[in-house]
C-alpha cells in the first residue's frame, strides 16, 4: 500500500492523495498533482520524490516556503505522521509500511537490476526499479514463535542499572557504573576481563592474562559467567563487588 498525503485546513479534511508516482508536485497551478488554489501558495511550490518506500519533500523555491512539524525546511526525508504546512494548509504524511526492524519480511535483500543513477538537482531516480532477486524468501514462513518472542524482548529490554565497587587497594570504595554495553576491568597486559551488559543481565568474560578472574572465589574459566547481585569478583589482585542499583 503506497504512502499517502491527507490535505486539511483548520482541522477539516479536504482530500487524500496516494503517493504512487515517482514525483508528486504541489502548487497553485492546475498542472500540479496536488493543486491548492490559494494565493499564499506558489504556482510550483514543492515536490515529493518517492523511491520505493521512502519519500523526500523538497521546496521548489516557493515564495512563502514550507514547514514540517512546525520547523521551516527546504528539504526533508518524510517519516510517518509528519505534517507539512503550506500557508494555512496542512498535509499529513502517512506511511504505514513496517519499518525494517519490525518486520522480518521486509529485510530480504534484493538486487536492483538497473543501477539507479540520480543527480540531486534533477530530481533523483529515473530508471524503473526492476527488483529481481529476493534474499531469504522463506523467512516469514518459518518465523518461529519462540524466536520471535525472544527477539522482540531482546531488542526492547535493558537490565536494571548495576555497579561494580572496588573493595581493596588505593581505589577502595570507588564505584563504577555499568552504563555501557561493554566495560573492561583490569590491567592491559596483565589481566583483563570484560563486563557485558545484555538484555537478560550482566556477564563477565576473561579477555587476556595468564589467570582467569574469580567470582565468589571460583575461577570462571574461558566462558562468560552471569553475575548475580552482590557477587564478589577478583582479578589482578583487586576485589570488587557487583550489585544492582535499586
Amino acid at each position, binding site marked *: 500500500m503506497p504512502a499517502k498525503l491527507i490535505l486539511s485546513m483548520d482541522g477539516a479534511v479536504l482530500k487524500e492523495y496516494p503517493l504512487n508516482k515517482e514525483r508528486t508536485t504541489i502548487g497553485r497551478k492546475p498542472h500540479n498533482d496536488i493543486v491548492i488554489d490559494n494565493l499564499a501558495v506558489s504556482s510550483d511550490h514543492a515536490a515529493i520524490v518517492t523511491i520505493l518506500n521512502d519519500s523526500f519533500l523538497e521546496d521548489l523555491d516557493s515564495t512563502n516556503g514550507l514547514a514540517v512539524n512546525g520547523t521551516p525546511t527546504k528539504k526533508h526525508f518524510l517519516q510517518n505522521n509528519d505534517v507539512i504546512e503550506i500557508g494555512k494548509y496542512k498535509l499529513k504524511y502517512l506511511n504505514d509500511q513496517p519499518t525494517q526492524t519490525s518486520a*522480518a519480511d521486509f529485510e530480504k535483500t534484493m538486487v536492483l537490476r538497473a543501477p539507479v543513477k540520480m543527480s540531486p538537482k534533477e530530481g533523483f531516480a529515473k530508471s524503473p526499479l526492476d527488483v529481481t532477486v529476493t534474499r531469504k524468501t522463506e523467512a516469514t514462513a518459518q518465523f518461529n514463535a519462540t*524466536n520471535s518472542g525472544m*527477539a522482540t524482548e531482546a531488542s526492547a529490554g535493558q537490565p536494571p542499572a548495576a555497579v561494580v565497587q572496588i573493595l581493596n587497594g588505593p581505589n577502595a570504595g570507588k564505584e563504577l557504573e555499568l552504563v555501557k554495553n*561493554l566495560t573492561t576491568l583490569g590491567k592491559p597486559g596483565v589481566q583483563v576481563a570484560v563486563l557485558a551488559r545484555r538484555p537478560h543481565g550482566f556477564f563477565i568474560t576473561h*579477555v587476556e592474562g595468564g589467570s582467569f578472574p574469580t567470582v565468589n572465589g571460583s575461577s570462571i574459566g574461558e566462558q562468560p559467567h552471569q553475575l548475580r547481585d552482590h557477587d564478589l569478583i577478583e582479578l589482578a589482585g583487586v576485589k570488587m563487588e557487583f550489585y544492582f542499583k535499586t
Partner: protein
Amino acid sequence: MDIHDALEIVSKTDPGMVRSHNEDSVTYDADLGLVVLADGMGGYNAGEVASGIAVSVLSSEVRHRLEDAHPEDLDGAGEELGVVLLRDNVKKANLSIFRAAQSQPQYAGMGTTIVTALFYDDRVAVVHVGDSRMYRLRGEEFESVTRDHSLLQEQIDSGMISKEDARLSKNKNLVTRAVGIDADVDPELHVHEVQVGDIYLLCSDGLNDMVEDEDIGTTLQMLQNNLPLAATQLIQLANDNGGRDNVSVILVKVKGRYAAPRGWWQKLYSWFGN
C-alpha cells in the same frame, strides 16, 4: 615475517535469532593471507549454494595459483598477481553461479554479495560486490574501507539523504550489484597500505544493520587482545539487538610486517627459511 605469523585471523558465522538457516559463507587461509565472506540470496537453499560457490571458487583458485607464484609478481599487463587473482576469480565465481542458476530451475535468480581480501607485501587488496563490508580499526579510528553497492549508499552519495537519516530509510537491503545474477559482474577493487596493529573486520549486513558502527568500533577496541572473544561479542550484540539476519564476521589482526622479499639474497634466505 611470514604471512602466517604476521596475521591473526578468526571467523565466526551465526544464523541469527530469526532465520532458520544460514546463507552466509566464510572461509580464510592463514598461509596465504586470504579471507572470503559471502552473503547469499535466493529462495529455498539457493542463497547458501550461491555464497558457497563464491567462497569455494575464490579459496581454491587463489590457493592453486599461488602454489608456484607470489601475489606481488607482475603479470604481462604490469598488474600484480594478487589483484588479478581476486578480480578474475570473483568474475569466475559469477559465471559459475550464473550458469548453475540457469541450468537448475530451483536455483533461478540466486546470487550473492562478496567481500574478499588478500594480505601481501605490507598491503591488503580488497574486492567487493554488494553490501558486505570491510572495516578497519587503526588506533582510535574505526571506519569502513568499502562502500556498499546499494540504493541507500547511492542516495547518501548524491546528497539526497544524510548518513544519520539513512538508518530511518525503508529501502535498506537493496543492492545494486551482486555476484551471479548476470553473465558479467563489476567487482570493485582497492589496495591499501597496512600498519602493524590494524584490525580488519569483514562482515555481512546482518552485523552492521543490527549494530551501530560506533558500537562495533568500541567492541573491537576493547577486545582487540582477544580476537575470538571480539568475534563472539559482535555476533552476540547483533543477536541481542534482534538478530534479524544471518551474521558473519572475519577479524584479521596485523601483528607484524610482511613485506615481500626484494633482493636476491632475501629471496634465497626465505627459500632456505621454508
